[in-house]
Structures are given as structure tokens and as C-alpha cells.
């Protein structure tokens, strides 16, 4: 094995005419936290299902933990944990019953089962909820249970499909703390999200849009290498300024964020601030700021018409 947990080349999955995943090349180093960032319907779930062996690719090949897919999917299933986007444990079983079932399905013996269940109950703060029905738990509690079940058999590779979509920022931060712990213990984590802040926590991300990979790399590198300059406008008539700038050839996008305008200008433009100043009304101030991941996302996906920036 080449130190890569996941390798894929030309991975494609079509549903009828539509290509949900289109010629995806991936290389996920073992031990990293790797994120798929993309809007609804961009193919995150389909990619996860391809990499877990639940769907067969229409074209291309993937190798996950050294197993060639789809041929060796069964062997792979022993070594991975998968937290599905929609809660897929049993709502009419309690927390304890769900964990017990998961442990048994993975063929754990009694000693290991008890040790692992106690361990995840403590780690995911579920000890007081063992007798609660999964269906009656809050979204955040349910997500902790789902993660607990996914890591119960100590998999070396973890797939998490939008694991924090239903939880508050506080819970999300705690959740990511546990992910960092797992990562520190050597687990490779592949996570999908449409939250920028979540993507920024990943060591590597791939930006997906309409089934295609638009950019990939470390978030910092992506932001540094952004082929655009970001000009921020404050004050004046923001809506008029926005109308004036939209449609200019070197302006990639204009988005209002609170009381500011964020303008992405092509890197080929020598003096982006001057360009912006031409358009804004009196009393407005414009200056260049550091790009963030959302800017990366907007630039990466700009060829897709009708798509606004995610999140």
C-alpha cells in the first residue's frame, strides 16, 4: 500500500443520463481528515457510496485500503465505518440496543463488545442516554450515537456523510474535537459537508460541483493560490454598487454579506480596488482582503450557471 487510504481515477457514476459523479480522481493519504465540499446534489453521497462499495461505478476504478472496488467490497466492509447522511440506526431500539446490535453484527466477542461499548458511551457522552429510544433523541444526540456506532469496531477508515448538518455550532465544535482525537489515533476520516468552517478544519479538501471535482488541496493552499483578488466594500448604496459591478468581464462574483459587499476580481486585473471604486457610490470604502474558503468555492464553481455560493 502506497500510504494512500483512497485512490480513485476517473470514477464515474451515472443514473440514467445524469452523471452524479463524473470522472473523479482522488488520492487521500492515510491518516488525514479529507473533506468533500459542495452544494446539494453535487455528488457527495454518491461518492461515499462508491467508495464504500454500496454502488458500482459506471466507469473508472477505485482502491480503498488496498481493496479494489467493486470486486473486494465485502472485505472492505470489515475495515470501514460509515455514518450515513440520514440516520440509519434503528429508531425503535434504545441507544444500548443499537450499539449491542452493531457490535454483534461486527462479530465482536463479549469482552471486546463490553469494552468498546463502554468506551464509546463515555467518549460520546451517551452514558445517561443508554435506555433512551434512538427515535426520541435530539438531532445532536442522534448524530453522536451514529458516530459511536460507526467507530465501534475501531475501523481504520471512517466515512462521515454530512455528520453535523443538524447540530448547533457548539455541538459541531465538540464533534470535531472527537474527530481530531480519532485522527490523532491514526484513523483516516473522509467527511462531506457544505459548511465552509467545517471544510476549513480538514487537512485536505476536494470541491465538488455537479459531480465534478473543481479544486482540491489543503484549505490554506487553496486560499493562497486563489486565482482572484477579493475586494471588500463597506458603506454607500450596496445594492446599486452590486448591480453596477455584475456582468463586468473581470468581476467573478459580487455577494452581499451583512453590511459588506465581497467582490471577487480576476487576478489578471492589475488594480482591482480601482475597478471596484469606479462602480461604488459616494461614501463607500473599498480595500483588498484575504480570501477565505468560500471565495475559493465560488471561483472553483463559477462555470456552473445558476448556482450560488453554498452555505
Amino acid at each position, binding site marked *: 500500500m502506497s500510504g494512500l487510504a483512497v485512490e480513485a481515477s476517473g470514477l464515474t457514476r451515472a443514473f440514467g443520463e445524469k452523471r452524479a459523479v463524473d470522472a473523479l480522481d482522488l488520492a487521500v493519504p492515510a491518516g488525514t481528515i479529507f473533506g468533500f465540499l459542495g452544494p446539494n446534489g453535487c455528488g457527495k453521497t454518491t461518492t461515499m457510496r462508491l467508495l464504500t462499495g454500496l454502488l458500482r461505478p459506471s466507469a473508472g476504478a477505485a482502491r480503498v485500503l488496498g481493496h479494489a472496488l*467493486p470486486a473486494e*467490497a465485502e472485505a472492505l466492509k470489515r475495515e470501514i465505518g460509515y455514518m450515513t447522511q440520514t440516520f440509519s440506526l434503528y429508531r425503535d431500539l434504545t441507544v444500548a440496543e443499537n450499539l449491542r446490535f452493531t457490535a454483534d453484527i*461486527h462479530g465482536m466477542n463479549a469482552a471486546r463488545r463490553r469494552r468498546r461499548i463502554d468506551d464509546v458511551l463515555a467518549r460520546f457522552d451517551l452514558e445517561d442516554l443508554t435506555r433512551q429510544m434512538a427515535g426520541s433523541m435530539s438531532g445532536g444526540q442522534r448524530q453522536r450515537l451514529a458516530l459511536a456506532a460507526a467507530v465501534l469496531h475501531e475501523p481504520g477508515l471512517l466515512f462521515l456523510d454530512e455528520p453535523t448538518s443538524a447540530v448547533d455550532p457548539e455541538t459541531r465544535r465538540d464533534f470535531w474535537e472527537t474527530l481530531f482525537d480519532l485522527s490523532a489515533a491514526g484513523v483516516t476520516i473522509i467527511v462531506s459537508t457544505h459548511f465552509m468552517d467545517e471544510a476549513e478544519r480538514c487537512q485536505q479538501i476536494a470541491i465538488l460541483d455537479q459531480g465534478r471535482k473543481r479544486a482540491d488541496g489543503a484549505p490554506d493552499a487553496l486560499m493562497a493560490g486563489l486565482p482572484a483578488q477579493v475586494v471588500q466594500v463597506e458603506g454607500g448604496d450596496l445594492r446599486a454598487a452590486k448591480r453596477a459591478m455584475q456582468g463586468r468581464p473581470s468581476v467573478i462574483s459580487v455577494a452581499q454579506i451583512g453590511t459588506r459587499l465581497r467582490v471577487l476580481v480576476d487576478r489578471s486585473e492589475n488594480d482591482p480596488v480601482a475597478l471596484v471604486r469606479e462602480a461604488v457610490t459616494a461614501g463607500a470604502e473599498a480595500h483588498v482582503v484575504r480570501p477565505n474558503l468560500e471565495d475559493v468555492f465560488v471561483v472553483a464553481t463559477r462555470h456552473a450557471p445558476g448556482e450560488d455560493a453554498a452555505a
Partner: protein
Amino acid sequence: MTALRRILAVLRKEIWQLRRDRLTFGMVVMIPLIQLLLFGFAINTNLRHIPAVLVDHSQSGLSRALVQMVEATQVVTFTERTVDVDEAERLIAGAKVRAAFIIPEDLYQRAVTSPATGFATPPSTDDVTARPVAQWIVDGSDTVVAGAIRSLRAMPLAELFRKPANRSVPTFEVAFYYNPEQRTVVNIVPGLVGIILTMTMIMFTSAAIVRETERGNTEMLITTPIRPIELMVGKIIPYMVIGFIQVGIILGLGKLVFNVPMQGTLADLFVVTLLFILASLSLGLVISTVAKSQLQAMQMTVFFLLPSILLSGFMFPYEGMPVAAQRIADVLPATHFMVAIRGVVLRDAGLAELSGHLWFLAGFAILGLIVAALRFRKRLD
């Protein structure tokens, strides 16, 4: 070892879920209980007391004696009386009665020349003086009703003139084995085991896999190392136990309430019902892998349930059905089970005598299980 552990895991999970599903749990007991009482009391192919209208144009002592004799057979009860034949026909058309008994004015003349009264010397067929003494008009649309009244056609009337009944020796002696009193319920109760098991066993398991998919559990299940066959086996074991509980309820109550005998051994009964339960459960699993929703599963269950009720020999004797229907019946597990369970319960038939049917059930169960396991793909496409 891990295979066993996984089977047990599925089994335990099914029990946990079942225990919380009070309604289903209640149905396990209520379905056999209610159906047994309903069918046991309601289905009766020995028709008695068919409502009829009496049209007596004779109005004589003789006609009144004739009416008494007819009523004494218990086949009909005269609930209406009229002197108008048209009125009688209207009553039949309106389903107030099923038959009309019309006694002509010249009853006496007809009676004395009738061979049924035993006065006349045995008539030759062209004896014009001998005519039927009275007439039945019957709603012939229901053949069972019609058949019951037809049985009155050659009723002896010797007693009409207080002559001793003709004690002639019957041409054939008929001995009714296994059900000497000819009670319908004796045949119904063991048959009902087959119907109720068909219904509940197929219904429970036909939903078993689709339900997991509908609730989103499948995506999790198929990412684990579980094998399809382990899942299938784990899912049917709890329902097997339920099946036996139902058999116990039906046969136990059948004995208590309807005095249906249990001639065979419990061991034979166990083998026969086990095979049938397995066959039904595996059919349910196959349905479950085909259906896309629980509603579809239910529809497919009914698709098998109706022929199982109508063609299996539960309602109508297998022998009386046209060959095409028999071929259809032959592939239904219920048909083979009907023969086998009635054999064990009523006739103390041994397993060897029933082996053909038992092999069919065993083969059906294994085939079903294999098909279900093969159809259940650990993939989403």
C-alpha cells in the same frame, strides 16, 4: 461462530422491535383466536333451516301433515305463508326466502298414486297416473342451497298415511370415518391453521426487508460484514416461534370449544407445521426482496393469500377442482399443508404417508430462502 453471533444479533433485534410493536404482538394472538371462533361457528356446509315460503292450495289435514314432515327434516323452515304463487316468487327474488313449496289442490289424488307413499304398486316409468305430489321452486343461484333442497326430492312419504316407514335395506352401507357426526368444524379447524399461518407468516416477513429499506436502515446494514443468509435466517426465527404459538391457539381452542380431536402425535404435528411455517416465511422473504414498499408487500401477500384460501382445499375439495386449478393449487404450500395437517390431526397419518407433501414444503422453504438471500444484494444498485 461469528455467523451464529450475527444471526443471533438479528434475531434479538427483531424480538426487541416486535416487543415494542404492541399492535402486531396483539394480532399474533387475536388473529387466530377471532378467526377460529368466526369460522368455527360460521362455516357450515350442512345447510339447515333454509327459509322458505309455503303456498298451500290444498288446505287439508293431509297438506298440514305433509308440511310437518318436510319441516321435520330440518332442511327448510317455513317463514312465510301465502296462497299466491306470484307473491312467492317475489319473496324469492327479494331474498326473503330461498325456496317456495307449492302444494296443489289435488294433493290427495296425487299422494295416493305416488310411489313415495307406498300405496301404489311399484309404478312403471310411463305410469301417467303417478305425478309428483307437490312442487319446490328454488333460488338455484347458490348451488349449496339448491343441493340441500334437491335432497328432499325423493323424500319417502309413507308416514303421511301413518304407515310404518319403509325399512328396506340400503343399497350401500356408508361408514363415515374420522368425522362420524359429519360436523363441518372438524375439517375447518385444521384447515384454518393453514390459512392463518399463510396470512400471518407471509405478512410478517414480506414486510421484513422492505421495512428496513423504508426506514433507511438498509444502508447501514449493508455496510457491515453481515451475510444475506444470516440476515434472512435471523429474521425468520422469531416468526417461527410466533407461528407455533398460533398453531397452539387454534388447535387448543379447536379441541376445547369445538371438540376437534387430535389423533396424531405432537411430534408429527411439529414436523408438519414447522415445514409449512418455514415455507411461508421464506415466501414472505422473497416478496420482501421484490417489493419496493410495505404496501406493495401487502398486495403481494394478498395475491398469495386468496388462492391459498380458495384453491388449497380449505374451502372446496381439491378433487372437485378443474385440472388447471389443481395445477395452480399444487404450487401453493397451503395445498400440501392442508392434506398434511388434516392427515395428522384427523386421521393420525404418519409422516411416511405424507412424505410427498412434506418434501414439497421442505423444498419450497429452502428454495425460497436461497432466492431471498440471492436477491438481497449488499448494494444499493
